[in-house]
């Protein structure tokens, strides 16, 4: 592989990680801002109470419940950020593809929400171990989601899923709207063949026509000398 190609993938990969971390730090800040206001409200309720007007316990309970649900929301964000960060620990690992897709969809939801698009993961009940590059796979899926978001209109749905096929898995990103082919989308997608090639995979659907609703690619079950049967090394489950 040429040095320029390695550089490009490396730069794009760093940019991808930076984007995810920046986006999720905004999400954590939102949670902290809400907790700040709720604790302030709790203080207001207590400070305004006196002997004649005691603090309403039901109000305080309601605020506590809201704080707890924001803490749970924040904990989920941080847990997913942590698993995402650790997915860069090694270039090759055995991981659960179902958990990985669920995580990148969760992390990408912020961008979908800002564009008022519904992003969902459609996943089977059973888990599937793959031996490949978890960061690269998340990057490839995120690039597809970004391209689909650029094409999606208000309040439409994008679904990410996978199917087991001979020798690996086919990852599919389906949009209710046709994927546009314009310079912005093409620029976003230009790195996709490089990432997928790094994963030892192939691009399955990226039609030149204007009516394609699906991006899909195949990645092999085992890559680079490690096997998905090595479940003792499974990552992020």
């Amino acid at each position, binding site marked *: 592989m040429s040095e320029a190609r390695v550089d490009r993938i490396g730069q794009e990969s760093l940019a991808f990680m930076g984007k995810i971390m920046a986006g999720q*730090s*905004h999400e954590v*800040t*939102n949670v*902290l*801002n*809400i907790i*700040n*206001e*709720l604790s*302030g*409200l709790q203080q*207001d309720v207590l400070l*305004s109470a006196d002997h004649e007007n005691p603090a309403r316990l039901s109000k305080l309970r309601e605020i506590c419940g*809201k704080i707890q649900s*924001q803490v749970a929301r924040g904990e989920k964000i941080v847990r997913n950020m942590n698993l995402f960060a650790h997915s860069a620990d090694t270039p090759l690992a055995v991981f659960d593809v179902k958990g990985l897709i669920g995580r990148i969809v969760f992390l990408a939801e912020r961008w979908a*929400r*800002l*564009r*008022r698009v519904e992003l969902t993961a459609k996943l089977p009940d059973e888990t599937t171990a793959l031996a490949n590059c978890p960061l690269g796979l998340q990057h490839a899926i995120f690039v597809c989601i970004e391209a689909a978001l650029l094409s999606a209109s*208000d309040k439409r749905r994008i679904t990410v899923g996978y199917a087991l096929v001979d020798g690996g898995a086919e990852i599919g990103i389906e949009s209710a709207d046709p994927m546009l082919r314009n310079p912005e989308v093409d620029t976003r997608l230009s790195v996709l063949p490089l990432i997928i090639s790094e994963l030892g995979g192939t691009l399955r659907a990226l039609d030149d026509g204007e009516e394609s609703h699906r991006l899909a690619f195949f990645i092999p079950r085992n890559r680079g000398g490690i096997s998905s049967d090595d479940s003792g090394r499974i990552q992020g489950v």
Partner: protein
Amino acid sequence: MDRLRVLFVDDEQELVSAVVERLEIRDIDACGAASGVEALQKLNQQSYDVAILDVRMPGLSGLETLRRVKYEHPEIAVILLSGHGSTEDVDRGLQLGACAYLQKPVNIDHLVDLIRKATQEGSTGSRGE
């Protein structure tokens, strides 16, 4: 003296309801909206003295909402609410007619000061923090 009427707009609904309650405790008539579109509807239905707009919202952004508010209701003072990394948006917002901005997390007493100043001084273009 009539109580001030304030519309607080942010897509985080829990934040909106908490801030609205805290403003009410401080003798300000406050209402909330979860989007720019909902804010414009409420501003058309009832009169407000001040609108507080989050800069970054899905759909109609805070800046686009500000532009429309200033076009349709130039008498309403607008305070912008910004998160990290929104300084360019805030500068643009002040150019578009916002009278002040406040950075999250909201300091409620500071916000109340800004609301009162905004209604006393009109659109003078002051910075919150």
